[in-house]
């Protein structure tokens, strides 16, 4: 090791991962976040490895209980001063986990293809669901109780109606075959998501037409048949094979496929499923994965528990499709990550996000659904509660890894100041962890104003000097700062190119 090598660098060089938040390569150590804590043998203290120089004969622990505890405490303290939703509450509560803020933004920006891609990433039947869904998402909208929740369900319907033919790209065939029993919402969902991954999928149903409960129990004035037909046709168009009007027995299905998913709805013909364990409510299946007592046989939707709303069946179907994929490929599918959510009763947080949204009250459609102008005006009301960097946020990633409890320390939070003045980037002060990375990058670029640490102690904030807005503070370094920011405090505006997470 050359003289002056830090413990962090030394560890990296031998493949030991030490987490960091404030560390900026090629710069002097900053030593503020303290998540890179390590313990030098013989000391009770923990030290930041980024600023500790290795010495001859030094023995360092990177995973002692004290080290792990200190990292967790540092993360929990940061979280106690970090205000934001990783995932917007509407998306969290949506059983299908539709990225609603992203959909709203795409609608607002009139990018309908993008909106369709976002919607169909979670919901294969948006036009259908847009007519029948009870919309739990709207119940958790942060504008509810103020001037009306965003009309998410109708916006989703708008996307479905405008792009009925849209289907996602299908991965190349992977040579595996899955049989799905039942063509209701759960079965269609399983088939859709497995087909997208490149599986050969065949759907069996005793009825002559696919759709299950969607077709049988909803009056056509609410859900016209042609809407459902078009969306099922799009699924068939992806290459899903339908064998309708034919009951299939489990043994037969298993014989001809690598895995079987039972999505038979609440009224199963138990004698067709020999060997499957049943409970009080339906097929006994493991929650989340849908595994039954038979290997390679999964169950989902109302066959497991009756009375599910369709959006729940679609969400469950998606999860079981992932579980089947894990079973057949041995690959791990990323599970919903550790998530932070602002207290539901907070009024400051939604108030602070008004800057992202239109002030208009909830719009009601003139016809059955929104016109283009109405949809754009309604989508503009979204507060975009979710974090623009939810998928790349280092704080979130580490919080998950270290099992940080976000509510462990409660107390005063940061100022919630959202600066949207800049053409390329947005700054949300509530998510800033004072790591100083942007301050240092701005200085490196010799910005005329740049970013400063303002104040000291707990009240230290990051911002332009003399109260200058971001637009004036960052003339050259904005992109680099946004990309380097380890949290969602500083991010590229949608459409500002690479690294944009919106």
């Amino acid at each position, binding site marked *: 090791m050359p003289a002056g090598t830090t413990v962090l660098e030394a560890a990296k060089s031998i493949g030991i991962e030490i987490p960091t938040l404030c560390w900026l390569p090629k710069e002097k*150590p900053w*030593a*503020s*976040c*303290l*998540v890179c*804590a390590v313990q030098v043998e013989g000391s*009770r*203290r*923990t*030290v*930041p490895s980024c*600023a*500790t*120089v290795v010495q001859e004969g030094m023995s360092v622990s990177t995973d002692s209980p*004290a080290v792990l*505890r*200190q990292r967790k*405490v*540092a993360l929990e*303290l*940061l979280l*106690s*001063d970090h205000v934001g939703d990783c995932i917007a509450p509407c998306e969290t509560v949506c059983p299908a986990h539709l990225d609603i803020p992203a959909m709203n933004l795409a609608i607002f920006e009139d990018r309908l293809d993008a909106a369709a891609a976002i919607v169909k990433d979670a919901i294969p039947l948006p036009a259908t669901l847009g007519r029948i869904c009870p919309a739990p998402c709207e119940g958790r909208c942060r504008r509810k109780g103020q001037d009306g929740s965003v009309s998410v369900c109708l916006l989703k319907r708008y996307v479905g109606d405008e792009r009925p033919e849209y289907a996602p790209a299908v991965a190349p065939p992977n040579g595996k075959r899955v049989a799905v029993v039942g063509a209701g919402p759960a079965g269609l969902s399983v088939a859709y998501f497995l087909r997208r991954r490149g599986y050969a999928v065949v759907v069996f149903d005793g009825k002559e037409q696919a759709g299950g409960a969607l077709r049988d129990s909803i009056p056509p004035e609410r859900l016209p048949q042609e809407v459902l037909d078009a969306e099922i046709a799009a699924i068939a168009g992806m290459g899903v094979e339908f064998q309708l009007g034919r009951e299939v027995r489990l043994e037969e299905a298993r014989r001809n496929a690598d895995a079987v998913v039972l999505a038979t709805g609440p009224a199963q013909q138990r004698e067709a499923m020999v060997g499957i364990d049943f409970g009080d409510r339906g097929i006994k299946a493991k929650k989340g994965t849908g595994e039954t007592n038979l290997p390679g046989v999964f169950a989902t939707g109302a066959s497991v528990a009756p009375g599910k709303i369709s959006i729940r069946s679609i969400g469950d179907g998606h999860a079981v499709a992932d579980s089947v994929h894990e079973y057949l490929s041995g690959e791990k599918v990323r599970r919903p990550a550790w998530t932070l959510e602002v207290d539901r009763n907070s009024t400051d947080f939604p108030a602070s996000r008004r800057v992202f949204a239109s002030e208009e009250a909830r719009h009601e459609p003139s016809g059955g659904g929104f016109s283009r102008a109405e949809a754009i005006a309604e989508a503009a009301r979204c507060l975009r509660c979710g974090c623009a960097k939810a998928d790349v946020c280092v704080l979130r990633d580490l919080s998950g890894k270290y099992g940080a409890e976000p509510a462990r*320390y*409660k*107390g*005063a939070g940061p100022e919630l100041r959202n600066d949207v003045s800049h053409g390329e980037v947005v700054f949300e002060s509530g998510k800033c*962890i*004072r790591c100083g990375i942007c*301050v240092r990058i*701005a*200085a490196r670029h*010799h*910005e*005329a*104003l*740049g*970013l*400063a*640490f*303002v*104040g*000291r*102690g*707990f*009240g*230290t904030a990051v911002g332009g*000097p*003399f*109260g200058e807005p971001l637009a004036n503070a960052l003339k050259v370094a904005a992109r680099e700062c946004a990309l380097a920011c380890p949290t969602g405090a500083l991010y590229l505006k949608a459409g500002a190119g690479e690294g944009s997470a919106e």
Partner: protein
Amino acid sequence: MSAVAEVDRLLGEIGDRPENLIALLQGIQETYRYLPDEALRHLALRTSITAAEIEGVASFYAQFRRKPVGRHLVKVCHGTACHVKGAGVVEDSLRRHLRMDADEDTTADGLVTLEQVACVGCCSLAPVVVVEGETLSHLDSSTAPGALDESLSRLARPRAKRIGRTRPSGSSSAELRIATDSCCAACGAVEVRDALLQAAADRAGAVKTVSCTGLCHLMPMVETDRGERYTRVRPEDAEKIVRRHLAPQSLGGFLRSIGSSVLDRLSEPLPPPVAPADPRDPVLCEFLGPQMRLAMEDGGRSSPFALDGYLASGGFEALEKARANPEKVVGWIKEAGLRGRGGAGFPTWRKWEAVADAPGRPKYLILNGDEGDPGAFMDRMLLESFPFRVLEGMAIAACAMGIEEGVLYVRAEYPQAVAGIRKAISMLEERGLLGSLALRVVQGAGAFVCGEETALIASVEGQRGTPRLKPPYPSEQGLWGCPTCVNNVETYALVPWIVRHGPQAFAQIGMERSKGTKVFALAGSVRRGGLIEVPMGTTLRQIVDEVGGGVEGGFKAVLVGGPSGGCVPASLADTPVDYESLQAAGAIMGSGGLVVLDNRSCVVDVARYFMGFTQTESCGKCTLCRIGTRRMLEILNRLCEGEGKAGDLDELESLAESVAAGSICGLGQTAPNPVLSTLRHFRSEYEAHLEGRCPSGRCTKLIRYRVTDACIGCTLCAQACPVDAIPMTPLVVHSIDDALCVRCDVCRSACPEEAIVVE
């Protein structure tokens, strides 16, 4: 003058390099009383200092204000001594009087801006409020508003001209001595001195301004060269004292003096002076008995700026000796066993040796005079009273390490110390006594964390005072990346004594591992507060009972080491003053603040006070300190307000341990000490707060005032109550409307029958 022209003027005067930034901002603020953005923008334009750096520094230091202030600035001291003596209720009373809400800082008419300050170093006069440089002392909630009004009306009148300087003393004639350092001045010593000078104008003998005596509780005090002394003297007493002790110079004066002696007998007589050496004065014997003065040698006799006097009493002999044997000095310091007096007790010789041996030039010497502990004022006193001794110590250190450039970093809250040490430096330079050593004074700007040496260095370089992880230590990489020796004021002040008397003489004093003496600022609930210097090994009990004269209201605990230190309970008062022993008791030596608590003091409140202090003073860089101290404070706030939750104590303790173990600098590492030590020694009091009780009757949310049957219906309390919570019912037992009561304690102190109780 426009801000642009003013900034240009300051740039010409002070310089435009990055390290001048803090001085430039201080200059701007002196002109405008705040920092106008226009001036700051111009500064960024005219210098290589970036706007971001200027904003960072201007917003970091508490001294700088970004908004215009009212016509008069009123600073309420919230130092430890002031806090335990009721600074909170004093501030509340001023706010009520000025009709200001808790979140306002300036009165509606723009007359007064109220500012909280960490400590003005007048702890033995607590609680104090400083009105445009005038210190109002020993206030309480009933006297503070009136004192403020009087002070403001004095400001409205033109100031009386200050007279004369100290007259040189004739060798044979009598001498009257008076100390006028900041805290004496705060008691009116300057007015007394001026009155003495006026009265002595035609008399033989002299009025001499002398160094601190340490007897803060008796100030202002006049002593004669024969050792007689008058205490708590008022300006109107001056003439009588002069007539009694100084002979008239002329026949006319003699005749006048006979005449006035006659008048004297007719007026109220002056009490007879007390001779200090007189064994009949047990008070002074007790106060001075356990003391031993090395750093404060000649206190009360020498004049701070009498260079000839300093030389005559052996001053600069040590420097001469060191210059003759520079290579031996480190060895002497090692043999003496001197350890740093700033708090941590690092062996001084090791620091000196490291700097002496370090490759790289130049090397720098720094005096750490950023005495930020709110309850300590030893360094201020040493700088004000013994400037030559401190400078000689620095010169010896420089000589031992081959250093030619030094910086004295002194907090801006000590204007008299700054002015004094500057004056002393130029006096020594005039006489060539500093040799090739160049010294300059840098003023801090209100940041406790700058007492941490790496933060101090950042501040000297003109940056935000944020510490960095050590190692590398300043002895390897200090100021401008060069080897740098940083020592505390008291450490330097002890060096001349050691060199002059020999290391053995020093090593014989004290304990095995802690040698010599330690200066303390003794304050709080002791009968005799003051500045004291005791040999290491003296017990806390001796200090409290003998030197301090015991505690009114029952000795509960001593806070040693301020916000970084701990709380030593009375049961452990036999702990000797010794680095290791204090640490074992849960405290630290610290820089020397000793605040004594009586049974009316609540330790949870004290822990909350210190945590409030450290979290305000946290630089905000590292997570554990920035957020951790805040979360600890919030738990303590909950406890003091009766809103504690089960599990709070465990959470507090565990967080305290994490912050102590993981923060990057001394401030964060020691910030949990007051919490941990009080939890250790007074856990039951914490538990009581969890149940919504404050056993000491201090936490205002947990107490109520009640009138007992002893009430005689005299209405004094009703008249005194600032919020009319006590109905005016003559000759009827009074009652207090709990909903209106603000717990200011005025009624209780007004009651002649002790009929108002706290429960």
